[in-house]
């Protein structure tokens, strides 16, 4: 997917201020977190960091379809599962290298999303949610019951280590860097998709798709594209999951997982990409912090989700403040007239 959707590289009127936050975030991801984790020196923490990054990507991908395009998607984990199974089966049974399985997972997932989207994309609101719920469950049932192909409930073990261009990357720190690079690149792509002219068109679908249709926006096609793009990123996340954990089983991709991803997007704030990232980090890391209290991971998800809907209906980082933050700090796509006044997304 990454070679298809390269962001346009027109020279932006990039000020120094526009670079501060991206560089800070990059330092945190690529220097501070690895340094801290190395000082702890436990493999388990690396695993948590990888899972957190994978869920950041999942939440960001759901953000495209549910947050920006406003289509309530209740089967996202199924596409994540398709990606994981594509990568897992290719790696374990065909011995494909990592560099092949990641794009393969994205392409297969996007293709399946395209097929299921063909009949269902004209549905709106709750009907769409129901249809995605049914599709998610159908994919889950296929993963669970097509034993000869997916190994059913036993799952798939992936023995082949991570290797890129002949360099062995199976040590925890190397795996973390690999995941971090792929997730960061995907997040940048999602950022450019959702904060652009194209993203505005998707937002118009959410606000009033009939009106957008009347204004000449091709609503059916845009919905389809948002759905497929989101599924492709979920597929990449699934492939990363398969390679970092080394074991996949259908129960990793059931309805509860879809709800977990949805909860991340809702808690962070519908329509806000930084919100989705924060929501994912919160819902993955909070249960780990509370691990000593008991097995409260899932109930925490429910409580955090309920409280955030009740007390913060806009989310932790609402769309409006997120958009203005992005304009100020990541504003290289924000077009200005010759007086330097902002006029819109490029």
């Amino acid at each position, binding site marked *: 997917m990454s070679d298809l959707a390269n962001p346009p590289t027109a020279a932006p009127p990039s000020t120094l201020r526009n670079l501060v936050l991206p560089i800070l975030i990059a330092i945190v991801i690529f220097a501070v977190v690895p340094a801290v984790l190395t000082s702890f020196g436990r493999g388990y923490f690396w695993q948590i960091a990888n899972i957190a990054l994978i869920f950041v990507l999942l939440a960001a991908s759901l953000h495209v379809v549910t947050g920006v395009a406003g289509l*309530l998607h209740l089967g996202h984990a199924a596409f994540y599962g398709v990606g994981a199974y594509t990568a897992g089966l290719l790696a374990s049974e065909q011995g494909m290298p990592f560099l092949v399985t990641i794009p393969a997972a994205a392409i297969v997932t996007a293709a399946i999303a395209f097929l299921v989207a063909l*009949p*269902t994309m004209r*549905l*709106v*609101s*709750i*009907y769409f*949610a*129901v*249809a995605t*719920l*049914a*599709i998610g*469950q*159908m994919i889950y*049932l296929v993963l*669970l*019951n097509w034993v000869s192909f997916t190994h059913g409930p036993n799952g798939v073990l992936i023995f082949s280590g991570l290797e890129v261009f002949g360099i062995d990357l199976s040590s925890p720190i190397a795996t973390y860097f690999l995941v971090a690079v792929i997730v960061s690149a995907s997040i940048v792509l999602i950022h450019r998709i959702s904060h652009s002219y194209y993203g505005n068109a998707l937002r118009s679908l959410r606000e009033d798709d009939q009106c957008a249709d009347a204004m000449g926006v091709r609503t059916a096609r845009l919905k389809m594209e948002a759905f497929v793009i989101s599924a492709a990123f979920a597929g990449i996340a699934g492939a990363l999951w398969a390679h970092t954990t080394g074991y996949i089983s259908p129960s990793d991709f059931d*309805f*509860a997982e879809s*709800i977990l991803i*949805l*909860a991340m997007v*809702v808690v962070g704030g519908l329509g806000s990409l930084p919100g989705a990232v924060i929501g994912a980090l919160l819902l993955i890391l909070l249960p780990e912090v509370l691990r000593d209290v*008991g*097995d*409260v991971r*899932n*109930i925490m*998800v*429910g*409580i955090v*989700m*309920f409280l955030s*809907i*009740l007390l913060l*209906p806009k989310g932790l980082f609402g769309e409006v403040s997120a958009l203005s933050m992005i304009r100020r700090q990541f504003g290289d796509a924000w077009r200005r007239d010759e007086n330097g006044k902002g006029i819109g997304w490029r």
Partner: protein
Amino acid sequence: MIDPYYLQQLVIGLSLGMTYALMAIGFTLIFGVLNVVNFAHGEVYTIGAFASLVLITAVAPPFVAVVVFALAIGALAGFSLERIAFKPFRRFTDEASLKSRAMREATLLSSLAVSIIAREAIELLFGSQQQAVPFEYLINQPIHLGPVIIVTGDLIIFGISALMLIGLQFLLTRTHVGLSIRAVSNNPLGARYVGINVDRTIIMTFVIGGMMGAAAGILVGLYYGVIFPAMGFIPGVKAFVAMVMGGLSSIPGAVICAIILGLSESVAVTFISSGWADMVAYGFLIVTLIFFPQGLFGARRERV
């Protein structure tokens, strides 16, 4: 001459369909009144089953008392569900915001969140493994009807469900409560203008839906003899499918479609493995959404 085995499957399918119907009615009533989908309905089913199991192991009451207790618990669960997950989001009373999109999504997500909390709380209390129902409460004594063998549970489930459906019909068409429920689902603002207490009517709707769901939960629990925290999810989805097939706000439609679902599932198990049988319901749902977006029995709707 039909093979008796198929007749047997049809009887099982009919009682299965009746339990889906009980669940689907709860969904349909609540959708009619509030225009929202109550995702926590499956947990009412689980709560009914678990509360009755606790009663059975504690005092070993007669069967009728168990069912009555389940109804009471269901009413309580419906009431608390409305107060916790729906009331806080009904900040405004005009029709535009009562049926607005933001309101629908907020309550949909809050009911999802409450359902997670309820299920996980049950799991923390009882553990995630299956609980066995005491042997003497199982409703599976075989009855021989000529070549067909059915169990008492089929008859009991069918009887109780039919009784509750008739009771519901009486309640909706012959009582003041039913009249106000129908009025609110027709036009909440109009109902308020003619002096109906909309808030109380909404509570009554949840109470009735909760009773139906909890009764279905304990009947199925006693029929199969196992009760576990995640038991409500699959029937919840099936009932939801039945509601959508029936056209979202039509109660007879939901009941008929629930029975069709139950029958086709139990017939499907004879041809395909039971793991794939759930596919039937989802297939039905997708086909309905594509070809009959109004539902099989629904009133005309502007857009789907």
